[in-house]
């Protein structure tokens, strides 16, 4: 006869087994849908490009060397891949500036929303999510209609006699930044708002009672408490901004490549799939390093409880 202990053990074993079985679908999805394609990309980055796209199953480290080094086609010297560095730098710069711009716009917006009465808050939240109902491409074209030479801004300024010739905004870096900030703003506002909503505003009142200045209240009380929201928002904006494709092409005129265009070129007209794969993985590594550094830094200087 089984002792009580044995029964308990068997029950525990069953429990463990059930838990594995229940999580199996999720694990399988992660294994095949997330890791699988990445592995293929990794393998492809070590193969030889086929003559007309695709790959030949021959090992070659060339793709990886050409991510960082280039052989000058005219004097055959080997040097740092200046073109790639320029393009990487441009994309990273854009992603950082976009993150800062959305933060500068999104933080006050979230504060405004969180300090409204409970009923109106939902309305504001609803308004922030409206742009998500429309496709990204359409939103970008809407920005284009506003800033182009025959667009709304220029037409109004011309009619009012403030300017005599249209201001060239479209196809400049300013245009790209306007578009990016507009497109990614909700991704910044929503997480900050989520933290801000939980903020106990009695703490703010207490701060004022103790003669803290407005800036001090913001810096010492509000910001530390909504920091998780700021971090989440920054990550949500930075990552897609780094790989942004549509907005820079449509508003920037496609004259200057972004990372995404460079990668697309390798899979299209460039016919160098291994290089495209190697570049993709390089981007992932950059994102990972940036995230680790950011989260670590943020964690270190955060408020300590207890």
């Amino acid at each position, binding site marked *: 006869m089984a002792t009580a202990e044995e029964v308990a053990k068997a029950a525990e074993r069953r429990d463990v087994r059930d838990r594995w079985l229940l999580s199996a679908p999720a694990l399988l999805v992660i294994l095949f849908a997330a890791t699988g394609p990445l592995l293929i990309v990794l393998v492809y980055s070590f193969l030889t490009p086929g*003559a*007309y*796209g*695709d790959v030949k199953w021959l090992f070659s480290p060339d793709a990886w060397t050409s991510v960082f080094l*280039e052989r000058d*086609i*005219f004097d055959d010297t080997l040097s740092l891949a*200046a*073109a*790639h560095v*320029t*393009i990487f730098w441009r994309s990273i710069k854009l992603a950082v500036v976009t993150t800062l711009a959305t933060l500068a716009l999104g933080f006050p917006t979230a504060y405004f929303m969180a300090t409204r009465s409970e009923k109106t808050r939902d309305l504001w939240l609803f308004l922030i999510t409206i742009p998500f109902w429309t496709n990204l491409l359409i939103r970008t074209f809407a920005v284009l209609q506003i800033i*182009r*030479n*025959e667009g709304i801004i220029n037409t109004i300024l011309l009619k009012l006699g403030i300017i005599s010739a249209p201001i*060239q905004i*479209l*196809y400049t870096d300013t245009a790209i930044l306007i578009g990016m900030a507009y497109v990614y703003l909700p991704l910044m506002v929503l997480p900050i708002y989520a933290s801000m909503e939980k903020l106990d505003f009695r703490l703010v009142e207490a701060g004022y009672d103790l003669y803290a200045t407005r800036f001090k209240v913001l810096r010492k009380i509000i910001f530390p408490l909504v920091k998780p929201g700021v971090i989440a928002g920054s990550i949500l904006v930075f990552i897609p901004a780094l790989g942004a494709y549509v907005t820079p*092409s449509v508003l920037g*005129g*496609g*004259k*200057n*490549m972004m990372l995404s*265009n*460079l990668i697309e*070129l390798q*899979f*299209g*007209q*460039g*016919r*160098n799939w291994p290089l495209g794969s190697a570049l993709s993985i390089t981007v992932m590594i950059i994102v990972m390093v940036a995230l680790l550094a950011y989260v670590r830094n943020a964690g270190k200087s955060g408020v300590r409880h207890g």
Partner: protein
Amino acid sequence: MNWKTTATAMGLALLASTGLARADGVLNIYNWGNYTSPDVIKKFEAKYNVKVTITDYDSNDTALAKIRQGGTGFDIAVPSQTYVPIWIKEGLVQETDPGKMENFKNVAPEWANPEFDPGRKYSVPWAWGTIGVVVNTNAYKGPADTWGIVFNTPDELKGKVNVVPEMNDVIFAAIKYAGGQQCTDDKAVLKKVRDLLVAAKPNWIAMEYDTIEKMDAGDFKATSDWNGSALRQRLANPAIHYNYPKEGFGLWSDNVVVLKEAKNVENAKLFQNFIMDPENAAGLSAFHRYANAITGSDKYMPADMKDAPEVVIPADAKPRGEFQKMCPPETQELYTKIWTELQK
């Protein structure tokens, strides 16, 4: 809903499905976007009782990559002449022998035996055209029959020129402007090409495909472009003129092939034959605004295309047109590097 309406609905559904089943099959076409005349397709469907589906692609490379992966379910594709030899070599297309089809007699002699498909064993002409320079004459009145508009931009057009970012087309034009031959791997010429492009770029406003609307709205005052696109621009704004560059310009053609993996081979062959009929070929042209290669189609062509300078190449410009070829992979690699440097 009561049982009566349910029964009627079911009966109707049944009728509809048997109606579909009575069609002599389907034909799945894989073609460039905004390129297939719905009227001609309707006519084909009615004539042969075939249901046609159309799926779009946006570049030769996309189409090639997708078909090479297989299992697409497409019967027909329309690659450009530079790609037809690759499709043949890679075993992606069937030898349907259009050269022996009934309507082949309509194919204009200069298109009957092209270099990319000798004897027309695989492909049927869909459309052909040129790549030149489009200028808004309100912005610039000087001579515009030169790639110099793009590569050595006159002051009036600085900051207003667009370049359609087709790598092979741009490099072709730049090589012509530098005085070289297409597909050259001569380093001296290519260095000139590189320097030319890098120096020209600051004068460009954009590198975009969306030229028709932007030329009309005035965002661009000049652009490199395909002739059919130029025609649509002139119809929207008569000040816009198409020019055949004196340094030489590219000729292209798109061709209908039947895929090896096609399941509806007979319908695909019927379609190949069908579009070589003059009236049908003219119907296709009326939609995509490019010339076709079918003799006798002129009398069915829309009036605004018959003598359009974009469609009918002027006699003096004709000898300067040259068919663009696919360059060898090693040369292509050099071009990609120049292109990356240009766009960095």
